[in-house]
């Protein structure tokens, strides 16, 4: 059981809540309080749009412990519209093959369960092919 560590990250996990640097305007995800671009203190909250493009991807056919339930699944590095890249699973993949450059959008999904059936459910960001709005 790892309740506190999941709990403390809930805002960024559920909704891609990051930071914006007040000095150089860089958008920061995950939040780290220190701007990776200019080194200044950056604690201003910034909500990412959740839109991005696939930088790279692979399929996990041999899932690590705790993820077998969802295997096989696709993991991608997604370049967010605002700049930073994030690692996340892709979900709701239809017939269209995944490709580098594919536009994706953030959704909040079950990431894993902390303990078989009894433990807390960890929710967090995943990405799916953009749905026509």
């Amino acid at each position, binding site marked *: 059981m790892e309740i506190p560590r999941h709990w403390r990250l809930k805002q960024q996990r559920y909704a891609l809540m990051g930071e914006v640097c007040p000095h150089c305007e860089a958008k920061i995800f995950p939040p780290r309080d220190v701007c990776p671009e200019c080194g200044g203190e950056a604690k201003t909250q910034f909500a990412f749009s959740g839109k991005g493009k696939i930088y790279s991807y692979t399929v996990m056919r041999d899932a690590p412990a705790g993820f077998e339930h969802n295997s096989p699944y696709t993991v991608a590095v997604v370049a967010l519209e605002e700049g930073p890249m994030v690692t996340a699973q892709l979900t709701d993949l239809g017939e269209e093959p995944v490709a580098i450059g594919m536009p994706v959008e953030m959704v*909040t*999904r*079950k990431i894993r369960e902390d303990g078989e059936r009894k433990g807390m*459910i960890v*929710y967090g960001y*995943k990405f799916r092919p953009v749905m026509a709005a």
Partner: protein
Amino acid sequence: MTEKPSVHEMHADQLLLRTDRKTGIVGYGAYVPRYRLPGTEVARVWTDGGSGTVKEKSVAGLDEDVITMSIEAARNAMLRAGIDPCELRAVWVGSESHPYAVKPSGTIVAEAIGASHNIQSGDWEFACKAGSEAMVAATALVGSGMGKYALAIGMDTAQGKPGDALEYTAASGGAAYVIGPADESVAKIEASYSYVSDTPDFWRRPEQKYPEHGQRFTGEPAYFKHIETAARTMLEQLGRTAADYTYAVFHQPNPKFPMKAGADLGFTPEQIKPGLLAPVIGNTYAGASLIGLTAVLDIAKAGDRILMVSYGSGAGSDAFSLEVTEKIAERRALAPSTADYIARRTPIDYAVYTRLRDKIDMG
């Protein structure tokens, strides 16, 4: 059975719930997961013939549950409402498949959409009318002036025992509504009215995975009695008839029941069909009437009147009388439509279905 006279019998002409402050639907959002199980698949495995009453039903993916689906529907509702999430004073989720037996779905949904911590939150349970009950409560909270906006959600990953008649229809999906001031709304809430009784037509005991039901007992004394009483009371006390409404949405456990109830009440198929999604997504339990309403709002015009009547086993119905405003035109396109979600579909076979719905015993 004779019923005791009550305060309501004494004021039988004033049963409708109306608020001092006028309220309405400020934002709405649907969600349907992308997987579809055709009725023919259930028949292939269990009955060697027939295909049930629906073409196919929607099935949640491996990483989805009532909380994740509620989050997406809520985000769509918030996009249409265009309000700061911190202005919400309640986040309520009605469902009969809350992921936790103890631990609210609402707080997770609230956190995910950026609501403040100064809210009411709690999970509603009343079989398939948990979502509309949350809508009544949200209307009351806003109508009383306790808060400006409240979010009510009806969502389910419905359970049906393998091989049972329910398995053809028990589906995943639902909708979310931001209730707020009538003058900001896409549809004004004229009144609501609820009718309930102790009628054991369908239930699920604690620790049980699948519900039990009274088969044909679920019809006349249960579904039809409550839906029609709620609808008739609403029509009578508003001094209206079915002809005064452009659309009617009824709880839809299958395609037949709402058509029959509608006909009994004087509604034509043209009034009912736009909000009748059961044939293509099945019965989303607490989400069913709410997502029928989003489908209607997706196409309604200013001035249209809509009657929505939910039904929850055990049993009861909530009726809402709505009048669409001119704001609908500008808000509609701000989030994916119900039809967008229905069109996004991946058919699955029964084997994949058993995996997605966690029916495989992993030991």
